[in-house]
C-alpha cells in the first residue's frame, strides 16, 4: 500500500515530467511572440489601433476650457490659423510639413494630420469590426442551415451565394450606399452583406467535414437532436476557422470602407480613405497628406492579415506538427 503522501509526490513528479510546465500568461505571450514575430508585430499594431480608437479623445476634461485630447492632441476638424501682423489677417497653417507642433504635418484645410488619423481609426475599426461581426453571425447561421440540411436547401443557398459572389463587391457597395442614406450604420450593413458569402462558404465546408466525425455520429446515436449537435458539438469545432476568417476579414472590410470613402461615397466624418482622396490632390505640394493616411490603411490591413495568419498557425493543430 502506498501512503497518500507518496501518491501525491508521485503525481507531482508525473505532472512535472509528463505534463507541460505551467507558465505565466506573460511568459506565454512573450514565448509566442518570439515564435511568431509577425503575429506579435500585428498584435502590437492592433492593440495600438484599438488604443487609438478608444482613447482618441481621452481624457475627457469636462468643463476645462483648454483641455486637449492626450492621444489625438487636437479635434478632428480643428484648423490652425495664425494672425499675420503684416497682412492684418489670419493665415492658415495649410500643408505644413511634419513638425513638433504637428507631428504628421497639416492638410490643405490646416487640420492636423496626426489627429485626423487617430480619429479616423475609430471609423475604420467600428465599421470593420461591426460589419464583420454582423457578416460572420449571418454567414455562420446560413452555413449551418445549408450544411446541416443538405439537399435542395443547400443547393439553393449555394447557388444564391455563387450568384452573389459573382457580383463585383465594390459595385454592390456603391449601389447600397447610393440608395440608402450615407450613414455609418448603413455602410456597416452594406459591408456585412458582402462578407456573408465568403464566411458562409468556408464555414459550411468545415461543418460538412465535422458532421462526418465519429463523435457526431455518437451524439446522434445517443439521441441528440440537430440543434444540440450543431451548438454543442459542431460549433466549438469550427470556432477556430471562424476566428481566422474574422481576423483576416477585418482587414478586407477596412480596405473596402477606405475605398468607398476614397470614392467620396462614405458617410460624413473623418475617414482614412477620404483623407487619402483629399491628399491625392495635393500630392505634389504636400505629399504627407496622402502618405500618412495611406500608411495607416496599409498598416491596419497588414496587421489584421498577419494576425489572421498567426492565429491560423496557432489554432490549427495540423500546422503545429
Amino acid at each position, binding site marked *: 500500500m502506498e501512503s497518500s503522501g507518496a501518491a501525491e509526490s508521485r503525481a507531482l513528479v508525473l505532472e512535472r515530467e509528463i505534463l507541460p510546465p505551467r507558465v505565466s500568461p506573460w511568459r506565454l505571450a512573450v514565448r509566442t511572440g*518570439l*515564435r511568431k*514575430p*509577425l503575429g506579435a508585430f500585428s498584435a502590437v499594431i492592433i492593440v495600438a489601433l484599438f488604443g487609438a480608437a478608444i482613447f482618441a479623445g481621452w481624457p475627457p476634461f469636462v468643463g476645462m476650457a483648454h483641455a486637449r485630447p492626450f492621444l489625438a492632441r487636437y479635434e478632428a*476638424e*480643428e*484648423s490652425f*490659423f*495664425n*494672425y*499675420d501682423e*503684416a*497682412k*492684418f*489677417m*489670419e*493665415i*492658415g*497653417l*495649410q*500643408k*505644413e*510639413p*511634419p*513638425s513638433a507642433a504637428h507631428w504628421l*504635418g497639416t492638410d*490643405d*484645410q*490646416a487640420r492636423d494630420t496626426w489627429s485626423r488619423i487617430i480619429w479616423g481609426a475609430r471609423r475604420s475599426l467600428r465599421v470593420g469590426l461591426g460589419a464583420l461581426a454582423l457578416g460572420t453571425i449571418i454567414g455562420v447561421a446560413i452555413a449551418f442551415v445549408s450544411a446541416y440540411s443538405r439537399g435542395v436547401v443547400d443547393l439553393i443557398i449555394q447557388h444564391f451565394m455563387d450568384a452573389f459572389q459573382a457580383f463585383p463587391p465594390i459595385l454592390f457597395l456603391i449601389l447600397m450606399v*447610393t440608395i440608402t442614406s450615407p450613414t455609418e450604420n448603413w455602410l456597416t450593413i452594406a459591408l456585412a452583406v458582402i462578407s456573408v458569402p465568403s464566411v458562409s462558404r468556408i464555414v459550411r465546408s468545415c461543418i460538412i467535414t465535422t458532421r462526418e466525425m465519429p463523435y457526431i455520429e455518437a451524439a446522434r446515436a445517443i439521441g441528440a437532436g440537430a440543434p444540440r449537435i450543431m451548438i454543442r458539438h459542431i460549433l466549438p469545432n469550427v470556432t477556430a476557422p471562424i476566428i481566422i476568417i474574422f481576423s483576416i476579414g477585418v482587414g478586407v472590410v477596412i480596405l473596402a470602407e477606405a475605398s468607398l470613402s476614397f470614392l*467620396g461615397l462614405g458617410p*460624413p466624418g473623418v475617414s482614412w480613405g477620404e483623407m487619402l482622396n*483629399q491628399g*491625392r*490632390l*495635393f*500630392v*505634389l*505640394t*504636400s*505629399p*504627407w497628406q496622402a*502618405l500618412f493616411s495611406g*500608411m495607416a490603411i*496599409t*498598416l491596419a490591413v*497588414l496587421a489584421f492579415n*498577419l494576425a489572421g*495568419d498567426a492565429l491560423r498557425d496557432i489554432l490549427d493543430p495540423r500546422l503545429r506538427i
Partner: protein
Amino acid sequence: MDEGNYWKRLARRRLTRRRLLTGAAGMGAGLAALSLVGCGGGGGKENGPTGTAAATPGPECPDPFATLPAIAPRGPWQPAKVRGGVVRWFGFDAIPLDTFDPHQTQFGPLFSIHSGIFSKVLAYDDVYDNRMMTDLAETMPETPDKLTYLIKLRPNVHFHDTEKIRNSFPDTAGRTLTAEDVKYSIERQMNSASPKASLYYRASQWTTLDKIELPDGPSGLTIKFTTKAPTAPFVHYLGDTCAFIIPKELVDPNSDDMNSLDKMVGTGPFILDRFAALQVVRMVRNPDWFAKDDLADQGLPNRPILDGLESIWPPADDTSTEAAFRSKQVDFTGYVDSDNVARIVEAVGAESDRGITAGWVNSRFLLKDSEYAKAPFPDLRLRKALHLAIDRSRMGQQMFGAGYFVLCPPVSLSLKQWAYTPEDLVKKPGYRFRREEREEDLAEAKRLWEAAGGPSLPQVEVFIAGIPDYLKNFAPQFQRNVQEVLGYRVKTRVDPTGYTELAQCALRKSCVWGLNYDNGWLDLDDWLYAYFHSTGSRNSFNLADATLDQMLEDQRAEFDRERRRQIGLEIQDYLLDQVLAKLDYVAPSQPSTRWPYLGNRRMTPWFGDWYLYPPNLWLDTAHSTYEGRPA
C-alpha cells in the same frame, strides 16, 4: 532544441508569397519614412507652398486689401505671325449637360461653347469694365428716346456651312442671317405658351419689350425694339447669355427645342466638330466668319487664326495635369492645387495667368415661410449674426488655398463698374479681418444672436451643392465655424446630384439655408433685380420688400451710368444692412499656367467668351518654348 529557435528556422525557410509581401510592405514603410525626412527637410520652408504663414508670409498669401488683381493686358492685340494649328487646354467645357439648346441651358461651360458657335446682336468687349461692342449689329443701337432701339445688322452674315451641315440641314447651311432670325430668337423666349417656357431663364428680361418690328421686312437687316418702359440694361440684354441668334428652322415646332448636337449651327467664329461628355469639345475654324477682318488693322486678318480649339476634360489629379502641361499636350491649364502654379512656372519657364472670376461661393436663406418650409431666421439680427460669424478669410483659404479673393460684395468685384471698391468693403462688418475689428464683429455676432433668441432656435439643415467638391469638403468646417462663434449646431446635407435637387428646392422655396457656387453675371441688373425683386426669376428667398423693389426698378430706369452705379451701391448697402438674404463669401481666382508660345490669351471673369479671344489666339512656332510641342 534547434527546432525551437526562430532565427535558425528563419534562415532555412524558403521565400513564400506571404514573406515577400510582408518584406515589401516593411521596405515600403521604411522608404516612406525616409522620404518623410526629405519632406520636412531644411528646404521645405523656402520651397514649400505656403510656408509658416505667420512667420514667413510669402507672395502667395492672400491679401484682402489688394485691389483688383493684375488682369492680362487689355491693350492692343498681338499681331499673329503664324497661322493654323490647334490649341488645347484642360477645361470643364465637356460637362454632361442639361440641354444643348442655347436659350434653355443654364450650364456655365456650355455658354462658352455656344459663344463660339452662335453670335449675338451685341457682345461684351470687356466684362470687367462693362464695355460692350457690336457683334451682329453693324453699329451700336440708335436710341432716339429711352424706349426705342434701332439696329442695323451686318450684311453677308452666313450660318455655318460644312458638308455635314449641308447633308443634314440644306436650308440652313450657308444661309444668310436676317432680321427675322433675331426677332424669332427673342420672341421664342417670350412665348409663355411654349412647352419649354419655364426653361427660358432670361424670359423676364424680354418681358420689358413692348414690340419688335422689322422696318425692312423679314428678310431685311433692320430691327427696331420698343420697350414698355425705360430700361437701362436693355443693351446688355442684347449681349447677354440668352441672346444667341439661332436659325428658326432648326427648332422643333412641337417640342420647341433644338436639343441636338447636330443643330449647333450658328454664325460664330467656330464650328462645333465634336462634343464627347467628360472627354473633349473640339471646334474648328469658321472660314466665313462675318467678323474675320474686324481686327485686320491690328495684324489679325482673316480670323480665327487657328484651325481649331480643343477643350479636354481635366484629369482628376494635378500630377497628370502637370505632366500633360510639361509635355505640351495642353497649352494652358488650371490646377486643383493652386500652389502648383508658381512651382511649375519656375520649373519650366511657363507663364501664369490670374484673373478674378465673377463666380462665387454664397449662402441663401429663406426669409419668409413658404408653402413648403418655415423660414429659419426671420429676424434680421439672426442673419446678421451669421453674416458676422462666418469667417470668409478662413473659408477662402480652406477652399482655394492661395487662389481666392476674400472680398465678395453682393455684386462681384470683377465688375468694376458696379461693385463696391475693395477699400470701401473692408470697412464693412463681416469683411473686416484685422484682429481687433474681427473680434468686434464676433462679439457683435454673439450679442445679436442672443438678443434675437438664437440659443433657443431649433436645429436647421444647410443644403450644400455637391459640385464642386470643395463645397462638400468644407461642410465640417462650416458647421464648426457657426458652432464655435454662436454655439449653434447646424446639420449639413450634400446634394447627391450636384445641383439638381438644390435648384428644385430653391424653385419651390423650400431650401431654408444653402451653400453653393454661383456662376456670376454680367450686369448690375442680373446681380440684383433677378435675385431680390419680388418678381425676380432667382428670388428663392421669398423676399418681397417694397423699398427694395422700388430701388431695383429705379436702377433699371436710370440711363446715366454713374447715377445707376450709385443706385446700385445703395441697393448693395440696403441688402447688407436691411436684408441679408444672401451671404456672399469668397471667389476663386483660378490661377493657371500657359506656355509663352501661345499668343493673345486673355483672362475673362466669366463663361461665354469664346467669341472674344480664341479667334485671336495664335501659336508662335518660332518661339523657343514651342520646341517639342506635339502637332
